[in-house]
């Protein structure tokens, strides 16, 4: 079976790759583009560790096929910081100790940013339901939610 030839944009850069039909976007990001920040926790879209945005929409990259993203724009955790300047959410995660083992952190950051890009004043409940697609086993979510709330407040202050 011939592979698919795909060009797309990842974190603002044009990329080109070959993939099998059954290879997921997560496989492509990790194995071919060597962007290992997105993690594989379950391969069934239940844990959110592989979260990326696809044309601005939050998705589980394990549920997207590599051959589906031709001509589209993908943002991963690696593209969140602007050079040496962390995104405010990344900074707040550090300040609030919103990570312990860190495996779920890329997914939460991508998901959290996707929320803040849409909703500048999320309530605690809105944050919790938005992030319900991301599993964390270490933190109990308390400090994660606080970090998102604090980031929203800081971004509103400009």
């Amino acid at each position, binding site marked *: 079976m011939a592979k698919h030839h795909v060009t797309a944009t990842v974190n603002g850069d044009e990329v080109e790759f070959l993939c099998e039909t059954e290879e997921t976007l997560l496989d492509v990001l990790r194995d071919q583009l060597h962007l290992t920040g997105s993690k594989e*926790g379950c391969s069934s879209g239940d844990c959110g560790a592989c979260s990326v945005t696809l044309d601005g929409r939050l998705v589980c990259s394990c549920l997207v096929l590599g051959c589906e993203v031709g001509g589209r724009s993908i943002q991963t955790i690696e593209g969140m910081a602007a050079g040496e300047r962390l995104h405010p959410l990344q900074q707040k995660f550090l300040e609030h100790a919103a990570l312990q083992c860190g495996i779920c952190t890329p997914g939460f950051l991508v998901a959290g940013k996707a929320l803040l890009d849409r909703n500048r004043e999320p309530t605690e409940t809105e944050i919790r339901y938005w992030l319900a697609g991301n599993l964390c086993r270490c933190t109990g979510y308390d400090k994660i939610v606080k970090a998102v709330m604090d980031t929203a407040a800081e971004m509103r202050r400009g």
Partner: protein
Amino acid sequence: MADTFTTTFDQAQSYVGTRTVRPDGLDKVTGRARFAADFDLPGQLVGRVLRSPHPHARIVSIDTSKAEALPGVKAVITRDDFPDQSSEFVPAGEMMMNYRDVVRNVLAREKVLYEGHAVAAVAATSVAIAKKALKLIDVTYEVLPHVIEVREAMAPNAPLLHEDLFTVGVEPKPDRPSNVAKRIEIGHGDIDAGFAKADVVVEREFNTAPVHQGYIEPHAALASTSEDGSAEIWCTTQGHFIVRAHCARLLGMDIGKVRVTASEIGGGFGGKTVVYLEPLAVALSKKAKRPVKMVMSREEVFKSSGPTSGANVKVKIGAKKDGTFVAAWAELKYQAGAFQGSPVQPGVMCAFAPYDIENVKVIGYDVVSNRPKVAAYRAPGAPISEFAVESVVDEIAKKLDIDPVELRLQNAAHEGTKAAYGPKFGPIGLEETLRSVKKTDHYTTPLQPWQGRGVASGFWFNIGGETCVSITVNEDGTVSLMAGTPDIGGLRASLANVAADELGVPYDKVRPIIGDTGSVGFNFLTGGSRSAFSGSMAVVEAAKQIKDDLCRRAAKLWEMQPDQVEFVNGYVKPIKENDKAKPMSVADMAKVAGKTGGPIGGVGRINAQGAGPSFGTHLVDVEVDPETGRVTILRYTMAQDAGKALHPSYVEGQFQGGAAQGIGWALNEEYIYGPDGKLQNAGFLDYRMPVASDVPMIDAIIVEVPNPRHPYGVRGVGETPIVPPMAAIGNAIEQATGIRFSELPMSPPKVLKALKEKGLNKPVTGTGTNGGSGKHKH
């Protein structure tokens, strides 16, 4: 331009106890940090495992010839590639392992003992070829009847897992094998006399379903071997020295020829203290003469790695009218999985540990059954036994009409109390945690109908263990710190706090890393709530060596005797002020290291003793939905004794994380087996762990009753948080509904069924309103 140190040091700056930013944080928030599956080596092969589809079967034959012949397959291994191990307990680090069981768990030999048991493994040039190769391996099974539930496994005619398993701990010794590996008993006093003088006796039986540690990162390992028989392994593990010991033993290698690097670890909670893939990857790599990378799927994690025990627990407590506990008895039956070794022993020891009771007897049974060999899960054994005990304590409180916190305070263990398992306690913080919780406004906030409040306490012993930390002062005065216990959740930050204070250097000049087994001396694994406790002790020891050495060097420079020099707050200085001997900072001394004897460093090598137990008390408000049986956690407050919180954010993090796992264990998590002995919910959709919308903020109160045996007073904290939640929630549900649940999890179908039996449920309304809000009458 490199930072320069000023010669004045802010004496007031102390890092221990402050919320510094963790040094490994930037890599983790940018995706740079490398977990085990993020490593690759040139030429690496993909390794995959063939696993048993049957919960119990004899292996008649394994034919790998077709798989070996498939182009792209570079190695196939089976039980024949691992020498058999005799049945004896051998030290593996500090644990005693029966390697006969370990080698059989890693790859089945005579029998497969659970669905998912590894039978063979292949290494191939691609995932597709590896998958195809597995299908080409012919295994002939003779399927046997299986047994899973613990009481069923103990029944006289239950299917037998091991023909050579005779119960240890019963007299007379049994002449027939069974599935009961061990019976244990502890106690003191005379419980019959004790119950005889009780005014109230409550006896209950509980059943808890097995649960999994639920770490988000699946097991993964990458092994590379070379022609002289040495091996390098990168893996996700809580104990890379233990991985080294196991691989060396199983494959007949010198320990010194195996070098293991622990990657960043995506959660462990006890489940990554054993080996699954590592020995297979090494064996495949040896055969294929290429690196082999193996990663478990989520389904494999659930089916093939070690979850915890399901259990049956009976508890009976007798108390006088005034609330004094006079007698306590419990019988625990824990599943060990396919091989013996459930945590029933610590479960037995912890059951009544929070209390001062004159007459105690606890019996435990370690029972094998056809599911994966259980691995440790955060305070192994204690959550189950203390769930049962704390539920009965709650019933006694209600029967005697005594406030549940007051009843616990009345009977609480304190310094000098003889623990249920024997020795007297040193200083402990149980009473402080009870009082902290009672003082909160959470405790007195009024409740609405269908809401309830519950409280429970818990404890873990905590351990110390072998630890080696190496500190080096670099030429520019920065400090490199190498620890050897994988950092699961903030260890590097905590150790850096201590090193910075001990040496009087700014926190951001300390760079902590976790060394591999070739770079730092032996370290026991991260577990047992030991890494911050032991690691910080070793840091103090290493720092002391450096400080003594700096004094000797300065003395030479100043032409004094070493005893005329001291190290205070980051400076060596003469004890008597001297114009010719100006104080020198660590950085100043570093510049002249070569001239004064060579590189500056210290190594703390200890077997840390004196771990202090950590007690905790949890308070929870729940709301039960009478239409769906769903239990919502409204509010959660917890207080736990940390001795001294080296880094408060990560201590709180341990508290909150453990509580959330307990919430999942209480309300939704369980292994669901079909009648065919196969796991029906081997994925995160149906193995339902708490998500952000399932829990509220968790208020964590750090109590500090210093541990006199630690230089900073530290107590381990990681495990205790998972012990109280299930009972606290069960007690809250009882208050909300009048129903005492004796089965875990208290999931919506079970709650609804119990409500229906009592005629308390509400039919689901067509409008789909949230039944839990607003006022309802019972």
